[in-house]
């Protein structure tokens, strides 16, 4: 049956498959990647990811070697640039260490807790990619869920988890996402959007600030904003590479992300928001009763759960 001579049913089969394909695309657009589509993706990833993981063990050294070979020509220039960068970074580090020491002292004085320090982190290996999306070797059984933010080992924003199966997940970098990212440049909030058909050599994104009050300058750092629903605030995204002044009330400029997704070998998935479901809906947490006893020489405050009586 499978191996026979020429058939005349090619055209009807072709048209049928085309129709099915277009229907699937429409279905995916309407479901926005959720529902049945998410189940199908998860199932396929669960089947293929063990093979990808095994292949990655063999492939990674080869890929690294070939990558290195292709980069040999530019190594000298890269070395010079990196040396200069290192000197600048070391100077900046000293300044930051001073600031951190002051911050720690102030936190100690005012008894503050650092927000976000308790975020769960899952370190994962990049085992492959399809188009601009990355495939990692950690999935739902490691606490990786769709929608979680992903950063690199330096803390720079990469993107979000697009879909996750039990043993793997797909990461959609910000440079490949259709959704704009709400960011902060200085004191101004803007939207970072992808530039379609960008070049391999210059990974760039467009920054739009619609209520611009002041110019932005080349070198300004772009951070995630507290207004973003996808990322914790304050994560570094990239830097402005062109000066721009407000025209009327809007401003547009170019931003170079700190991370080149194609060069990544490891990523960090953040468990953020820390507990989105229970934070909004959980009513099982017992209410706390606070008893305050005022003694003659000291004030003691004790907190006990209601269940304990």
């Amino acid at each position, binding site marked *: 049956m499978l*191996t026979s001579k020429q058939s005349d049913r090619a055209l009807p089969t072709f048209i049928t498959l085309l129709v099915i394909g277009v229907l699937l*695309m429409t279905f995916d657009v309407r479901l926005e990647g959720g529902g049945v589509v998410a189940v199908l993706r998860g199932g396929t990833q669960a089947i*293929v990811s063990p093979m990808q993981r095994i292949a990655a063990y063999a492939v990674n050294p080869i890929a690294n070697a070939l990558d290195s070979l292709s980069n040999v020509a530019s190594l000298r220039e890269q070395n010079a640039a990196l040396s200069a960068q290192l000197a600048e970074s070391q100077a900046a580090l000293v300044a930051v260490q001073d600031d951190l020491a002051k911050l720690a002292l102030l936190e100690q004085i005012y008894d503050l807790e650092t927000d976000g320090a308790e975020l769960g982190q899952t370190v994962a290996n990049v085992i492959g*990619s399809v188009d601009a999306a990355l495939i990692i070797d950690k999935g739902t059984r490691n606490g990786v869920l769709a929608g979680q933010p992903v950063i690199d080992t330096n803390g720079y924003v990469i993107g979000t988890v697009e879909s996750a199966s039990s043993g793997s997940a797909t990461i959609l970098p910000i440079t490949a996402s259709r959704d704009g990212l709400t960011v902060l440049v200085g004191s101004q909030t803007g939207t970072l959007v992808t530039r379609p058909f960008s070049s391999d050599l210059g990974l760039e994104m467009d920054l739009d600030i619609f209520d611009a009050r002041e110019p932005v300058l080349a070198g300004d750092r772009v951070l995630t904003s507290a207004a973003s629903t996808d990322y914790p605030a304050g994560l570094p995204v990239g830097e402005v590479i062109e000066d721009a002044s407000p025209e009327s009330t809007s401003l547009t400029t170019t931003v170079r992300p700190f991370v080149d997704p194609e060069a990544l070998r490891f990523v960090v998935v953040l468990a953020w928001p820390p507990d989105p479901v229970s934070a909004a809906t959980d009513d099982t947490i017992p209410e706390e009763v606070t008893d305050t006893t005022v003694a003659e020489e000291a004030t003691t405050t004790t907190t006990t759960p209601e269940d304990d009586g």
Partner: protein
Amino acid sequence: MRGRTALVIGLTVVIAVVIQTTLFGRLRVVTPDLVMLIGIMLALTRIRTEAILGVAFLSGLIMDLLGASLIGLRAVVYTTVAYIAIRTRERAEMGGRVTIALWVGLLTLLGVVLLLLIGTLFGQAALIGEGAVSVMILVPLANVAVAALFAPTFVRLVDRDRTALRYP
């Protein structure tokens, strides 16, 4: 016989998908599209055309499911390329190794352009459009090289015929 052929094709597709998403997903210079290439090279075998189209569609669908692009995007493109390959294979078979390699290169270029075009229409330009110009050059060239080297072996393996696809 049918089962064995299906097994060979199935295994080849799985291996191609795994290599494509791991090794060639990591390299920037050597970037063939092995999964598309299988759909094209199957047209050189004696397998029924419906089966070729079905394999092309399913392999594209698997790639769609593993990535973040729309489901059905690659399935449609690979099926279209496979259909055109079926319709033009007789001309390719008349020539030698170079003709077949060029035929594969042209079909791959068509596939890449279709992928960018349909992807853009469905709002996937950001995802699949990165380095579009270099992709349009490098992917067909890499497929030409792979086809020139492995097309006869692949056809003989699938057809289980050592005399298949002998170059003049």
